[in-house]
């Protein structure tokens, strides 16, 4: 469903992505990990065209993302995205955050959008917070609203860009729980995260990145059974140390 072929990207002279290739099939959950600055977030933002890339090709559901003729807004409406800093719209209430794109992009009727919104808020356990503004919610609640906002578009795949990195430890699980549910329901997901417990539990494959390259791309079992390269091993020993 998502296919990356030899993707390279430069910021000026600095190469952030170096010849990255991988594939994500329908229903698969792929975790992308690696040290900070390794290009994980950049890679995931290339998938829905938030970041441009200079070389290679990305195909989503058969559509080329890098093609100038591609209707990017339409393509993006089919891909849900969740950000590290939640990025809820601060000037809109929770309900309006979730409704906006349903009305403006999918052109749903108000009733339809309302129904979908309530249903999703119940699913992430926040029905009672519907009329609050983002600033009145905890980080974990905000991130769950952000997931509901993405799901409201009925996406066929979801991208998560370090969804728990900005959260206090006690709030990480409430977000991960929602993501685990989603994975169980068969959602196609690419998740950039350092949560190795989550990776072990739900990921089908692990992609390990370092210095803009995909260094490892293997099944979750292989990755944790130390069949991995030196760099991945060094990275894992650092984050699993405590």
């Amino acid at each position: 469903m998502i296919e990356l072929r030899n993707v390279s990207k430069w910021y000026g002279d600095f190469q952030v992505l170096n010849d990255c290739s991988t594939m994500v099939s329908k229903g698969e959950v792929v975790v992308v990990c690696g040290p900070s600055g390794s290009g994980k977030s950049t890679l995931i933002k290339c998938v829905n065209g938030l970041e441009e890339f200079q070389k290679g090709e990305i195909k989503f559901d058969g559509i080329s993302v890098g093609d100038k003729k591609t209707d990017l807004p339409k393509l993006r409406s089919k891909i849900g995205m969740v950000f590290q800093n939640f990025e809820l719209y601060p000037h809109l209430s929770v309900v309006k955050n979730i409704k906006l794109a349903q009305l403006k992009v999918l052109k749903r009727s108000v009733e339809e959008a309302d129904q979908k919104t309530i249903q999703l808020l119940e699913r992430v356990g926040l029905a009672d917070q519907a009329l609050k503004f983002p600033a009145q919610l905890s980080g974990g609640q905000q991130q769950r609203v952000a997931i509901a906002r993405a799901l409201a578009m009925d996406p066929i795949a979801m991208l998560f860009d370090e969804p728990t990195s900005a959260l206090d430890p006690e709030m990480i699980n409430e977000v991960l729980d929602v993501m685990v549910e989603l994975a169980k329901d068969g959602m196609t997901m690419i998740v950039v995260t350092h949560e190795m417990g989550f990776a072990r539990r739900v990921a089908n494959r692990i992609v390990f990145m370092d210095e803009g390259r995909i260094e490892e791309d293997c099944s979750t079992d292989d990755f944790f059974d130390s069949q991995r390269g030196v760099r991945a091993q060094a990275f894992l020993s650092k984050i699993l140390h405590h």
Partner: protein
Amino acid sequence: MFDQFDTNVILENLHFLIEGMQLTLLLTIAAICGGLVLGTLLALARLSGFWILSLVSSTYVNFFRSMPLILVIFWFYFLVPLILGQPVGGYYSVLIAFVLFEAAYYCEIIRAGIQSVSKGQVYAGQAVGLNYFQNMCYIVLPQAFRNMIPVLLTQAIILFQDTSLVYVVGVKDFLVSADLVANRENRIFEMFTTVACVYLIICLSGSLLIRKLQMRYAL
């Protein structure tokens, strides 16, 4: 001196002064609205990434910001009737001058406001499938304007004071009305003191309002 202060001359000509103030306020509000619309378009052009649009916009802004306002007022007073081939009256020519002049300043304020909205918010709008204009209208500009409110109001107060420059082309605003009364009744001291007090009160209350808003939106 104050025992000769004749308050009657003010009361007798009150309706005349109020008419002048109406014109001053009307001009201020119309110039703010027009200037905001044009300024927003200029700011969008300047940030558009198309070099020709941003060149046109920045040339416009730099041009008007290099001109004294009084010159622009004069210029349009004589130029607009020439272009249209018929007289338009002082009011409309100064209105056009103010809108075009203020737009240059608003453009820079709005540009800074748009740039104050984080890249993450722009991404968040794009990621759900909003196109450029939807993203601007629903996500970026509402946040930008909220950040800009104090600066925009400060500019509005400056504009309110600047409208007194229409004096040079004889449009009867508050100051000109007071001046006419002052000369007719030979009560220059009373009239100009009144004018000063009214400007002072309006501008001070404007400033107080801004400070309140700033405190409210500081967090």
